[in-house]
């Protein structure tokens, strides 16, 4: 099979969450090889890891992210696509480690102090990772100190704050202000069900969206 055709097939497998041959979904691809096997085939054909990333994985994640933004795909579809993509990224890891393949940048993400919800955070993580960024996931219940320590270790990183409930959303304000006082230049993105653009402006964050794909486009524009 030709390289271009394989790359196209890889992007479809990522979009559909077909991680490997054993993955039972989607039903119409049952028994067929999936994203991991195709990535290995491409590597065996000496296709550049950069092409695998930019012409296979990223377009697949972008398509599912766009469908999510349009209300035509939902949380499980994104998580399955992310799982498929992660299997491929693991195969590409040696090239990242050797410096043959570079990420677009580093994005630090965490759910704010007091909040233990992680589904929204994980969706954003999946989309940003799938757009070619390295993502450092600090988990849930993340304090200002933890965000600041992570920025110290990754001085050029952009930072994402997530909150699901109205009572923990207010913690975003102090975290944004703590980060700003140490790192005035780093971009801060906020998101979560109760968050609004008005709130984003009020607390001095740089970007808000309801949709992970828009966060990814914002980061790419930096």
């Amino acid at each position, binding site marked *: 099979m030709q390289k271009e055709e394989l790359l196209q097939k890889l992007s479809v497998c990522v979009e559909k969450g077909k991680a490997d041959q054993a993955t039972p979904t989607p039903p119409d691809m049952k028994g067929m090889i999936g994203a991991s096997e195709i990535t290995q085939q491409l590597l065996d054909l000496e296709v550049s890891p950069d092409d695998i990333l930019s012409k296979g994985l990223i377009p697949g994640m972008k398509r599912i992210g766009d469908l999510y933004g349009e*209300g035509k795909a939902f949380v499980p579809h994104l998580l399955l696509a992310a*799982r498929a993509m992660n299997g491929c990224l693991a195969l590409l890891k040696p090239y990242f480690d050797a410096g043959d393949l570079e990420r677009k940048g580093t994005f630090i993400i965490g759910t704010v102090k007091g909040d*233990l919800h992680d589904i929204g955070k994980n969706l954003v993580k999946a989309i940003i990772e799938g757009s070619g960024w390295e993502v450092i996931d600090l988990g849930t219940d993340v304090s200002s100190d933890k965000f600041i320590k992570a920025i110290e270790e990754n001085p050029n990183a952009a930072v994402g704050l997530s909150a699901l409930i*109205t*009572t923990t959303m*207010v913690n975003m304000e102090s975290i944004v202000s703590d980060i700003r006082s140490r790192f005035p230049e780093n971009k801060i993105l906020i998101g979560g069900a109760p968050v609004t653009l008005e*709130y984003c402006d009020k607390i001095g964050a740089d970007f808000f969206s309801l949709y992970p794909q828009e966060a990814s486009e914002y980061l790419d524009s930096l």
Partner: protein
Amino acid sequence: MNNMSKIKDRILEKGTLVSDGAWGTFIHQKGLTAEESPEEWNLTRPDDIYDVASSYVKAGADMILTNSFGGSPFKLAPYGLEEKVYEINKAAAEISKRAAGNDVLVFGSVGPTGKILMMGEVSEQDMFDGFVKQMKGLIDGGADGIIIETMSDMDEARVAMRAAKSVTDKEVICTFTFSLTPANEYRTMMGTSPAETVDMLLAEGADIIGANCGNGTAGMIDIVKEIRKVNSDIPVLVHANAGMPVLREGISFFPETPVEMSVQIRELIAVGANIVGGCCGTTPEHISRIVDVVKSSK
């Protein structure tokens, strides 16, 4: 009224019933911090929890819930309360029962675990066992039934329904949370439509189905219409938010006043809701207004 009568009988008897309003927002007003488990207050501040329950009884609700939404082992574990699941849930039911007296029914609230089965974050058996432990506490504490609420995942709701049926013969209510997608359809975050939940819940033996959270009353009217298109018989419960949150002085706020909400309740009943109450942002005053509307529509 006989305390043993079931809620379905009461719907036949009284027509529309009124449920309670928000617990979480109410407890936060009483000083709960973001670092605390709301459910732990059943043990540490039972008088405050009693006050919430009692205020809805005084507002005229026919049924009230319990302070146990996040009372599963999965939600209590991060607070180091994993060993107290049974105790916390039993206390939740006991407090609400004490406030409810003989005439008001108590449904033990069970919320989602936050774990996604299809991603393998938890096994079906572990999820089932966790729900059983929570529900046993609620039933042993005297709850008249179980309400599984704010569900978005059909698989999780199915496991919770089976857990409830294994614990008790009492009535089980199950409600999902839908929101309007950019494609202008009501779906749970997992992609399930209101109509799709109906068949599953009937097959699992739910006594009452419905929707809570995620919408103000206007959205709930559309959701009930969708449920009624596929089933005209099963009792439907709705717990609507007091509108959709807006920001006021930096704090997110649910804008629908008791009067604004109550005027829409008539239509909610007209399209087929049998039990109406509130979710986030609703107060005893909202419930009291709804009680007035329900009484005056008879």
